[in-house]
């Protein structure tokens, strides 16, 4: 069989290079159209929840973009458009809760925030009867507890990760990896109970910000180990070899070549771990105890913390004054975590290896 025969024998594949395309405005038009249809159906059927309106619109959007494309452009293009539409719908489904949560918290919390709110504690305020009082003591407590937890967890986590990536071989490394994985899954309540029984009951220390930090450190450590491990693995082996070939010992290679190369990612990982523990309520509730007054000494006596404060205002004060303060504290907490994330990103960008000419 000659080559010409083979081509001629191919089943009637279209050899045209051009094909009908939907106009560029079509996706936008379909979007607008399906939202209109969704709203109309929702209004006519008397559906209460706007969520249902949105879901109907999304469904209509998917079906409409597929059929429109299938009739004009053909099946293959239609599948492509369908996949694209699905990705967009999924993206919006993911973003909507996030945006609405932020928006709602800002809306509810902004009214509560004032200079007084940020600079006063709840000492001498009868929370149920007046809108006065503030979160100064909670901010102090959260910052100190998180800072202490980070000071404990970050070095241990970092060194563990260095061990696992640079030195770890055989059974010990496997065991460490396994326990880090197990630790990742420890519920925060259990971490709190553990410290409560070990530190406060068995060793007899009193409630303090520090005992809360210990529990937070337990929660933070596996996250730091995991993220640092991934970052260290990303450092190319060639750099280690280049350093060894210069007669640099292994420990110095790790300290001066490997860690600086990965420092951007490591910082981001640590900051994300910090953000994670900042919002932990359960261990703080058990170990820090919650105080109405300013206690800036994390080693002695009960402190306050933002998540715990929010919970107390909501469940114990439990009226409009409490709700308002809870929203205000929630907004401050979100802003705090977001600020940490931004700092982490800034550091990552600033420290990451540059290729500029």
């Amino acid at each position, binding site marked *: 069989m000659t080559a010409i025969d083979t081509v001629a024998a191919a089943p009637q594949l279209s050899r045209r290079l051009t094909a009908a395309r939907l106009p560029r405005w079509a996706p936008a038009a379909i979007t607008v159209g399906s939202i209109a249809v969704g709203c109309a159906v929702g209004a006519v059927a008397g559906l209460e929840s706007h969520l249902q309106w949105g879901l109907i619109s999304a469904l209509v959007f998917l079906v409409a973009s597929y059929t429109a494309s299938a009739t004009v452009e053909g099946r293959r293009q239609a599948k492509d458009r369908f996949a694209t539409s699905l990705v967009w719908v999924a993206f919006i489904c993911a973003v909507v809760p996030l945006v609405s949560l932020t928006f709602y918290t800002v809306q509810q919390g902004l009214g509560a925030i004032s200079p007084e709110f940020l600079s006063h504690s709840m000492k001498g305020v009868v929370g149920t009867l007046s809108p006065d009082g503030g979160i100064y003591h909670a901010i102090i407590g959260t910052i100190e507890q998180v800072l202490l937890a980070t000071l404990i967890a970050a070095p241990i986590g970092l060194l563990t990760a260095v061990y696992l990536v640079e030195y770890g*071989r055989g059974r010990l490394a496997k065991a460490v990896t396994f326990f880090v994985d197990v630790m990742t899954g420890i519920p925060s309540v259990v971490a709190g109970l553990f410290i409560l029984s070990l530190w406060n009951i068995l060793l007899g220390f009193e409630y303090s910000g520090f005992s809360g930090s210990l529990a937070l450190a337990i929660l933070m450590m596996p996250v730091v180990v995991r993220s640092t491990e991934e970052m260290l693995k990303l450092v*190319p082996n*060639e*750099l*280690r*070899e*280049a*350093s*060894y*070939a*210069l*007669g*640099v*010992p292994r420990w*110095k*290679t790790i300290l*001066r*070549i490997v860690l*600086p*190369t990965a*420092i951007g990612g490591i910082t981001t990982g640590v900051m994300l771990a910090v953000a994670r523990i900042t919002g932990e309520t359960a261990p703080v509730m058990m170990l820090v105890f919650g105080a109405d007054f300013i206690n800036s000494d994390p080693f002695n006596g009960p402190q306050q913390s933002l998540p715990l404060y929010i919970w107390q205002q909501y469940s114990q004060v439990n009226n409009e004054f409490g709700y308002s303060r809870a929203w205000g504290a929630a907004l401050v907490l979100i802003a705090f975590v977001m600020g940490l994330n931004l700092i982490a990103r800034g550091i990552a960008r600033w*420290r990451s*290896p*540059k*290729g*500029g*000419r």
Partner: protein
Amino acid sequence: MAKRIDVSGLSAYYGSTRAIEDISMTIEPRSVTAFIGPSGCGKSTFLRTLNRMHEVIPGARVEGKVMLDDENLYGANVDPVAVRRSVGMVFQRPNPFPTMSIYDNVVAGLKLAGVKKKSVLDGVVEKSLQGANLWNEVKDRLNKPGAGLSGGQQQRLCIARAIAVEPEVLLMDEPCSALDPISTLAIEDLIGELKSQFTIVIVTHNMQQAARVSDRTAFFNLAGVGQPGKLIELDDTQRIFSNPSVQATEDYISGRFG
């Protein structure tokens, strides 16, 4: 500076696999010795045994002797770190340290060994970069990141970094295989200049390159897939390329291999 290497009865293993078998050769000081041979014949492995980089890979070990003048690199109490200070290495892919500037890259070896004096470091930077034919191109941007240079410049930066610690021997593992012909030419010229000070060993897949830069050439081959690589012959480059004593060498360099 520039020492003779005397290898006798050297075998290298990765775990239980033997990568090279019973190699003995002498590498003359102040000359360029090229290793040629098909992929997988153990040239790079052998090169890496000459500064104990081989054992960086988990499970890798070596049997035999490598004498650097009168010291056995594999003798008892020999510190691999010290070995690598006197036997430097340049790798296949340019690998400047991405967090460091050009300046810091050049003096990385000295700085990490504890040399701090600015005047000493400044001198070394200029001398090494000039030695690597890179000084004129980068002297105005020594504080820019080394990763911003072109591939050929990066490789010369790596050579500058390797010669900055003043080793006795310089090993080069296919230093030009990631570079264009012009950068390759620059590196080859550089090798010609460096051989007045260092003992140079270069692994290359490019036979013309071996013929151009080296004084002596070693041909490695392996009996088959999974078999350890062996040294077939080592002779003056001119002889290897005109009148080799082993048939396999002639087959390989004339393209009749296989």
